């Protein structure tokens, strides 16, 4: 097996470890659009990184964290419906990013790799960066698991029982921002939400507890990464979209399995 394929597999599998549990919460909290908004804003980060001549990874992390903060703030105002706010932020961040990238001189920017991922170009450095990110996210998530679950089930009950709802929600949002930043290279800004949602939806019918659903979601994510990468390797299809297609096939199979 080629070295680049091993790196790609490793990177993909690492990402699914956090995409699984974060993804089930996205489903439970009906936040799919929210994930989209954060990942689209990462394109703005690419532009910032290039224009300010800083590391693009740092640019992405900064922009997703910034947009996450903006989202946390905007959820506290009640003038505009939340999906309206998300729509505005999501598409303006994406467009602004694309416009700004066109101003970058000298370098020819491979925009497609940022939109759809370039997992086959992952370096050992990238893997170290991803591993650190995954370790941080999973640790924080384990710490806030119970209050996050409680406020996800019912926010007012959690509040009455003493959960600091706004703090825990904010931390969760920041975790998704971190995930987006480190997963950009794997599946790209447009497809990250798929990696969060599809394996989580696939695992629903097999799970009897919230934790099972999160674990199964990791499992299905890993299957999708493996199947997608091999499909991509064998038939030379784009890797990121192949992973998403594999996840979708797994989802469809689970639906048929459910009927039988």
């Amino acid at each position, binding site marked *: 097996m080629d070295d680049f394929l091993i790196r790609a597999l490793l990177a993909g599998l690492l990402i699914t470890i956090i995409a699984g549990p974060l993804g089930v919460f996205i*489903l*439970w909290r*009906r936040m799919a659009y929210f994930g989209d908004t954060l990942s689209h804003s990462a394109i703005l980060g690419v532009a910032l990184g290039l224009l300010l001549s800083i590391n693009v990874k740092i640019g992405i992390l900064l922009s997703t964290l910034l947009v996450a903060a903006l989202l946390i703030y905007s959820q506290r105002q009640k003038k505009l419906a939340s999906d309206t706010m998300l729509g505005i932020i999501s598409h303006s961040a994406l467009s602004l990013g694309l416009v700004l990238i066109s101003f970058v001189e000298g370098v020819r920017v491979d925009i497609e790799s940022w939109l759809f991922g370039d997992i086959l170009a992952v370096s050992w450095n990238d893997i170290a960066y991803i591993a650190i990110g995954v370790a941080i996210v999973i640790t924080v998530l384990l710490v806030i698991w*119970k209050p996050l*679950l*409680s406020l*996800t*089930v*019912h926010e*007012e*009950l*959690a*509040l*009455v*029982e003493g959960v600091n709802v706004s703090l825990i929600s904010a931390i969760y949002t920041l975790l998704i921002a971190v995930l987006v930043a480190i997963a950009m290279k794997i599946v790209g800004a447009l497809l990250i939400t798929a990696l969060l949602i599809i394996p989580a*939806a696939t695992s*629903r019918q097999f*799970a*009897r*507890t*919230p934790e*099972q*659903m999160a674990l199964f979601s990791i499992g299905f994510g890993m299957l999708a990464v493996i199947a997608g990468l091999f499909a991509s390797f064998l038939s030379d299809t784009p890797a990121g979209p192949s992973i998403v297609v594999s996840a979708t096939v797994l989802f469809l199979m689970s639906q048929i399995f459910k009927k039988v």
Partner: protein
Amino acid sequence: MLVPSSKDSELLASLDQIHLSLQGKTILHDVSLKLQAGKILTVIGPNGAGKSSLIQVLLGFEKPQSGNVFRRAKLRIGYVPQKISINTIMPITVERFVALAGKRKSNALAALDETGVKHLAKQAIQQLSGGEFQRVLLARALQHKPELLILDEPAQGVDVIGQAELYEKIATLKDKYGFGVLLVSHDLHLVMQKTDHVLCLNQHICCSGHADDVSQHPEYQRLFGNLPAEGLAVYTHNHNHCHDLHGDVVTGECLHPEHSSKDHSHGNNMSEVDQSKSVSLAKEVKHKHG
């Protein structure tokens, strides 16, 4: 199982001249109330009277424009919200749902046992009926060892017999643990029998007092018209007797013509229906306890 009298008068929380308006519309005007340990306060009022907002203010979720909200320091509140729906995409059992409030698993089972729904522990929370769900919510509130229990329309979507049993359960638990109870409802005749004090709310407090006084109050009669006055009286009466008398006797007594006239009956079909409901209810409850 009487609560010591010293604890009886202990003030848990109070509202003092609360004024709340949302988007320029007055929701609550000059509302005051006191919640004491071991006492049941029932707030009744028609839809849109501001009952839920009252709870929101008391819990601190809404900030009133003027007036004082007092909650005793570190007051533990058990809250039973109006019927809530849980996203079906979350796999969660009843036991786990209750345990979210507490520290250990065994507590959840004990609490479910106490509210009479231990047999549902392994079921998915989304499959419960209205009445079962209320009991599960009650169990979760108990997990928190509440000093004050707040219930928002706990009888919604629960049939008449289930309602009576639920109220009976709340009263029993109150006697056991000595917590104060705030119960909010628009459904009147079943609520009032165990309550210590009734507030009739329609943005402002129309009238207050003991259940029987309130039901005779002209403001109350104007608000609720012909509906529950007879039902209320019938039920209170029934309760005093249902353990002593046979079902037949209760029926006879409740349909006594003297009784209706005493209660300013508006004498339409609706109240007839209410009466017969209450009567059969009393029988049913007696059955279960007998």
